[in-house]
C-alpha cells in the first residue's frame, strides 16, 4: 500500500500556450491550460486525475515528466526541482519517469517490429548488447502477457488491446518508478478494457510502481486510484481519497460529474445534476472561480475571486467558497 513519502510533488505548476488567433497574425491568444496547481503523489500509490476534455489533465501529466516545460512553478522529484532541467539533465531521469499513451494506434511506429519498439529505450539508455536487449524484450512481452512469437510482428498486426500492452511493455523497459497513464483504456473495447486495467494493477504490485492515472471516466479512476484529483479548466477543484470523493463529493462540479457518470447499477437511483452550458474556453478564463459560469451555488464572491484549495477534513481538499 501507499506509504507516506511523496514520489513527485507539483508546486504552483502553470502552463500557458500561446496561439495565434488566425494565420494572418492578429492578437495572440494565451491558452491557460494549467493554472497554479499543487499536489503530491505518494510513492507506490495511484493518483487519479479526472476532468473533461480541455481541463488540462493530460498537460499536467506531461508536465510532471517534463515532456512539456512548465511556464512557472516547480516539480520536486527525489528532493530536486526538475522544472528547469534541460533535456540533457533530464536524460538520466527519463529512465525513471515513463508514460503510457491513450491512442495505441498513433503511439507505436508502424515501421518497427514489436520487439524493436519495446527494446528501443534499452538501446538509447543502456549499453546492453543486441542479444541482451532481445532477451530483455522477451521478458517484457511475458510481463504484459503477449506470446513470444508475436515479437517480430508489426503494430498493424495487433488489436487495440494488444497494442496497448506493447505500449506498457515499452514504458516498463527501463524499470521506471513513476508512470503517467494517459487515458490508457479509453480507446479500447469494453471487453478488452478490463484485461488492460487488471494488467496495470498487477504490474504495480509486481514492480512497486507509482502511477498518475488520467481518465475522464470516474468509474475507472475510482476503481484504480488511491486518491483522486478533479480538474476543471486548468485548476484542481477537489482532491481526496477515492472512496471519500465518491461518497462525499463537496465541490458542486465534482457532485455533478459523479452524478453524470452512467453507471450499470440499474437500481442505484441517484439524483442527476445536469450542468447548464458548455465549458468556457481556456483562452478566455472567467474571472473568479473557473466554474462559476455553470455552478448552481454561485454567489457574488465566486465571480470576483478564485477560491484556494484548502483542506476541509483530513486528506480532503476542495477549492470552493462554500466550505
Amino acid at each position, binding site marked *: 500500500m501507499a506509504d507516506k513519502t511523496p514520489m513527485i510533488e507539483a508546486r504552483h505548476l502553470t502552463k500557458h500556450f500561446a496561439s495565434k488567433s488566425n494565420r494572418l497574425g492578429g492578437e495572440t491568444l494565451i491558452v491557460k491550460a494549467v493554472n497554479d496547481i499543487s499536489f503530491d503523489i505518494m510513492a507506490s500509490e495511484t493518483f487519479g486525475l479526472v476532468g473533461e476534455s480541455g481541463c488540462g489533465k493530460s498537460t499536467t501529466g506531461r508536465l510532471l515528466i517534463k515532456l512539456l516545460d512548465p511556464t512557472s512553478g516547480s516539480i520536486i522529484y527525489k528532493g530536486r526541482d526538475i522544472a528547469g532541467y534541460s533535456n540533457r539533465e533530464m536524460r538520466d531521469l527519463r529512465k525513471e519517469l515513463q508514460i503510457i499513451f491513450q491512442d495505441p494506434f498513433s503511439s507505436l511506429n508502424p515501421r518497427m517490429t514489436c520487439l524493436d519498439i519495446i527494446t528501443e529505450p534499452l538501446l538509447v539508455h543502456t549499453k546492453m548488447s543486441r542479444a541482451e536487449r532481445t532477451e530483455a524484450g522477451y521478458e517484457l512481452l511475458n510481463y504484459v502477457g503477449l506470446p513470444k512469437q508475436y515479437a517480430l510482428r508489426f503494430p498493424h498486426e495487433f*488489436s487495440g*488491446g494488444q497494442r496497448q500492452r506493447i505500449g506498457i511493455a515499452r514504458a516498463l523497459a527501463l524499470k521506471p518508478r513513476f508512470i503517467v497513464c494517459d487515458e490508457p483504456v479509453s480507446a479500447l473495447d469494453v471487453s478488452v478494457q478490463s484485461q488492460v486495467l487488471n494488467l496495470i494493477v498487477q504490474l504495480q504490485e509486481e514492480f512497486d510502481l507509482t502511477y498518475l492515472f488520467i481518465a475522464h471516466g470516474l468509474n475507472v479512476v475510482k476503481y484504480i486510484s488511491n486518491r483522486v484529483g478533479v480538474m476543471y479548466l486548468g485548476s484542481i477543484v477537489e482532491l481526496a481519497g477515492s472512496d471519500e470523493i465518491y461518497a462525499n463529493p463537496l465541490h458542486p462540479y465534482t457532485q455533478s460529474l459523479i452524478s453524470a457518470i452512467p453507471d*450499470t447499477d440499474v437500481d442505484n437511483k441517484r439524483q442527476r445534476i*445536469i450542468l447548464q452550458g458548455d465549458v468556457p474556453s481556456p483562452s478566455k478564463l472567467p474571472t473568479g472561480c473557473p466554474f462559476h459560469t455553470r455552478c448552481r451555488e454561485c454567489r457574488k464572491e465566486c465571480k470576483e475571486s478564485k477560491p484556494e484549495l484548502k483542506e476541509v477534513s483530513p486528506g480532503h481538499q476542495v477549492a470552493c467558497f462554500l466550505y
Partner: protein
Amino acid sequence: MSKLLEVNHLTTQFKVDKNKIIKAVDNSSFYIDESETLAIVGESGSGKSVTALSVMQLVPNPPGRIAGGEIMFRGRDLLKLSKAEMRAVRGGQISMIFQEPMTSLNPVLTIGRQLTEAITLHMKLSRKDAEARAVELLRKVQIPDAEKRLKTYPHQLSGGMRQRVMICMALSCNPKILIADEPTTALDVTIQAQILDLIRTLRDEEKMAVMFITHDLGVVADIAHRAVVMYAGSIMEMGLKRDLFLNPLHPYTQGLLGAIPRLSTPRGQKLYTIPGIVPDLSQLPKGCPFCTRCDQCMKTCHEQKPPLRRLPDGREVRCFRVEGGEEIG
C-alpha cells in the same frame, strides 16, 4: 403497445474481397414499440451500426448489400419500397443522428440552411415558414439565441451544441422513430448527461420511439427500456433493461457487465475479463460466434450455432445453456 418497427431475419453482407463476403448482420430479428427506447449494445464490429444503417437503407452499396429479411414499418416492408418512397420515409418518419456531429454537418453551409433543407423537402413549407419552424425547433433542443444561431456555421458551435443541432434536424419532420448512433460517444460526461436528458425529454414530449446504439452499458442503464446485445453480427440476448442487468443469461452479457468497474467495485479487486479479442468477421468460429472466448463453452458450441430462443417471459437468448421457450431463428 403495438409494434412500430419490426425487423425480421435481417442479413446485411459486405463484400470485402473478390470471393469473400462477411455478414455484418446475421439473421437478426427485433422490434420497437411505440414511444419506447430500445438500446442496441455491442462492441466494435458487432453489427450495431450496420443494423441502424440497414433500417435507414443507408448501407453503402457496393460493397454492402441487404441480403435478406424484412423491415416492417407501419404495415409496409421498407425493403420493398422504391427509392423515392424510401426517401420520403428517411428523414421524415424515421430519422437518424450520428456519433460525430462535426463530420455529419456540412461545414460550408449555415445551420439555418441545413435545418431548413429537410423541412422544405418533407413538409413542403416556404423558406420563411421553414425558418420559423427551425427557430422553434432550436428552442426545443434548448439552444440559446435561436434566431442568431441560424446564421452561424458548424465550427462556431461546441460539440454539445452541434449534437443539439443534429437532433433538431432529425426532429424537424416529427419522426416516429429516432435512430441515434452513439450520439454521445464523442462528448464529455457532463455534456453527455445533457444530451441524454434532452433525448429522454423529447421522446416523451413527441411520443417517438428511439433506437439507441451504444457500446456503453452505463448509457443503456440510463436511457433504455429494453436492450438488444449484439456480438459479431448476431443478437445474443434481448430483454428488459432491469432483467438484463440484474440477471444476464448469456455468458457474453455476463462477461460485459462483470468487466466494467462500477462505482461500487472495491479498489484493486480483480475485474472479470473476457479472454481474447473480438473476432474478425471473416474468420468467425463455426459454431457459436462467442465460443472461442466463452468460459461456459461446451462441445456443441463449437459445432453449431445456437438458435435464438424466446423464453416464456419474453427474454430472448442465443445460448445452448439456456433451455425452454421456443426457437425463433
